[in-house]
């Protein structure tokens, strides 16, 4: 085993940190978070420097690197500013579907836009009340000549309203008796007739990006909209979740580290009862716990990212990484807020949005309950 980053990985990490340090303005960030505005200029610069879509092939403006490098960037950006980091790293969650399963035409159509910051993408898989799996989705795509007609609704889609394309998971054989109903994945352009959206309002975190409920009302799409094979939708969605779980986990590690950095700075400066907060023994216990959690979460997340790039990541390790890192981010950010006391509760200091963003990452694409389902399915699922 070798736990050291390669030279080029260290360079990427340094570059991302330097970029965040140079471009993220604390006050502007706090304001944008509050107002739910998108940092468009910063995205442009991030794209110019190649941070977005670094895992894309070169012909689609990527650097042909791996999930590992993508994770290093995510971690560095979120460490500097949790909301800004999420905003920059989650412009293209649907792009992974295209990248991993799309055909050449689809890649050409969508990937360069994601990499140069002109296109936001969205995944619209889940629906209300499907429990832990996606088998019960009600959105249908029915064959109509060469193409398809899509009907349904998808609640609370991240980037809803701003995305140029939606990856929509649909039932394509709703009448089938098959206990594993046939699902397929479609890339539906935002300007497709019949697609509409309604802003979903502020969220618990990640407020620089938009979110909306998406309505698909007799949306007609051509055969070229099908991503991957007909009937492969569930597998593709799961694979996409798997990659995103690791990416979110890396973001969570960044959030945890950023909250920790701020807490450590604060308790080294701030005095209470005549001594630095950091000199209180309870601070020692808390800091030791926080640091330990960050170390084990980061190490696990790196392992998951490495496994993905080595072609051997299973659902269970991805889910473990997501659950562990998100819970670490939450616990660390919680204590950071507590160290700051009353100030920690105000939006003047950053720790409160690190805490909310940690909860966002914890819930987004499945809370711990969902992750446990995925893990146990791998271990015990065969038993039934």
């Amino acid at each position, binding site marked *: 085993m070798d736990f050291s980053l390669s030279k080029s990985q260290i360079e990427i990490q340094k570059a991302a940190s330097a970029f965040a340090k140079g471009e993220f303005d604390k006050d502007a960030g706090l304001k944008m978070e509050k107002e739910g505005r998108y940092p468009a200029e910063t995205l442009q610069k991030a794209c110019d420097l190649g941070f977005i879509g670094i895992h894309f092939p070169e012909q689609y403006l990527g650097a042909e690197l791996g999930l590992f490098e993508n994770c290093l960037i995510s971690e560095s950006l979120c460490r500097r500013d949790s909301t800004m980091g999420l905003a920059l790293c989650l412009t293209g969650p649907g792009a992974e579907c295209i990248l991993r399963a799309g055909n050449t035409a689809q890649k050409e159509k969508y990937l360069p836009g994601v990499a140069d910051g002109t296109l936001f993408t969205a995944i619209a898989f889940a629906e209300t*009340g499907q429990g832990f*799996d996606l088998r019960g989705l009600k959105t249908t795509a029915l064959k109509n000549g060469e193409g398809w007609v899509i009907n349904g609704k998808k609640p609370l889609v991240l980037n809803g309203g701003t995305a140029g394309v939606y990856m929509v998971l649909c039932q394509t054989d709703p009448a089938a008796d098959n206990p594993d109903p046939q699902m397929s994945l479609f890339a539906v352009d935002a300007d497709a007739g019949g697609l509409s959206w309604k802003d979903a*309002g502020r*969220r618990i975190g990640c407020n620089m990006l938009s979110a909306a409920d998406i309505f698909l009302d007799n949306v007609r799409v051509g055969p070229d909209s099908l991503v991957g094979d007909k009937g492969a939708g569930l597998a593709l969605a799961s694979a996409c979740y798997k990659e995103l779980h690791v990416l979110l986990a890396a973001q969570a590690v960044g959030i945890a580290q950023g909250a920790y950095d701020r807490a450590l700075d604060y308790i080294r400066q701030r005095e*209470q009862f005549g001594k630095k907060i950091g000199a209180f023994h309870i601070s020692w216990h808390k800091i030791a716990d926080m640091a330990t959690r960050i170390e084990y979460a980061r190490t696990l997340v790196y392992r998951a990212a490495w496994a993905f790039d080595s072609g051997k990541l299973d659902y269970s390790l991805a889910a473990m990484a997501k659950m562990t890192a998100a819970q670490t981010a*939450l616990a660390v950010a919680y204590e950071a807020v507590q160290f700051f006391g009353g100030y920690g509760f*105000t939006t003047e200091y950053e720790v409160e*949005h690190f805490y909310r963003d940690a909860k966002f990452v914890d819930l987004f694409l499945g809370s711990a309950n969902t992750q*446990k389902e995925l893990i146990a399915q791998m271990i015990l699922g065969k038993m039934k």
Partner: protein
Amino acid sequence: MDILQYTAAHTQFRERLREFCQREIIPYVDQWEAAHIVPKSVWKKMGAEGFLCTNAPVAYGGHGLDFLYSVIVAEEMTRTNHTGLAATVHSDVVVPYIVSYGAEAVKKKYIPGCTSGDIITAIAMTEPDAGSDVAAMTTTAVEVGGEVEINGSKTFITNGINADLVVLAARDPDAENPHQAVSLYLVEDGTPGFERGRQLEKMGWNSQDTAELFFNKCRIPLENRLGEKNMGFVMLMEKLQQERLMCAVSAQFAIEFIVEAAVSHCKTTTDSKGKPLSKYQGLNFQLVEMMTNAHVGRVFMEKLVADHMEGLNVARETCMAKFWHTDLSQKTAGQALDLFGEAALAERNPLVRSWRDLRVLPIFAGTNEIMKIVVGKMSGL
């Protein structure tokens, strides 16, 4: 056995109040959250219907009701899932200082207005650089002739913008012992030299007009001093039991509110095969654990309320409750969001507001770390 003796009158009061909340509060909460303040008119409505200062003596214009009415108000207000109309802070934290320590004339002057809602009160203790450390207070009060001149600033003041009357803690700059240097004063809105600072923007409590207050050569009449000079620290300590108890009580009611919502969500949300989430055993057990903790918390809280009503010194147990209940509220709110899953990402889910609002409970009225220090000391550790 019933630890607390609710009578028919209590129940009737609760029903009236619940109806009031449904009518006058809940429909407006979103609006107030956006405005970061509640209109003064709703305080007056609440006063007019008899829900403010229930515990203040009749002789001074209060309702003279027992402390259980305060508990009922805390419960029903918690169930409105907002914090702007901080009636409990007003009726059960601030006004009791006036009742206990105000001169006769002062009581007669202010308490009727506090009861009617014409006077909204706030307590100003915390300072920007002092945090939990009362001994580090820098706001000064110098008594000259029949007046007192106040200089300094306060922060994190609940009802700060709306307040018509502020109970202020300030230091005697000449006193040597920092624990025998603090006095309490009443400062009216409009007194020259008393200015509001910024309204604080926060992670939660968005309908609450939490603010900074500034005092610059602010002069008030000497009769507005509460109790003896330099005895403020003792008075604060004396009243902290009830303040911290109300924190624990509010946390307990929030926990119950959240558990009910989580149970209801899990019973009514079904998976694709019609199985409710509550029948998934892993989630079912979480609900059971949440209900159990809520039940344990309820018993602990009721016992403490009963002891408090008997006039017992339960300062140690109250500090325990303050951190135990507010910590549990964090855990419960987090678990509830997990049960909602992605649906809990959006603020349109009311439990997101609960989660945000509750985060301050382990911080204010003495952080939970301070509570543990106090319990440790009182336990001879």
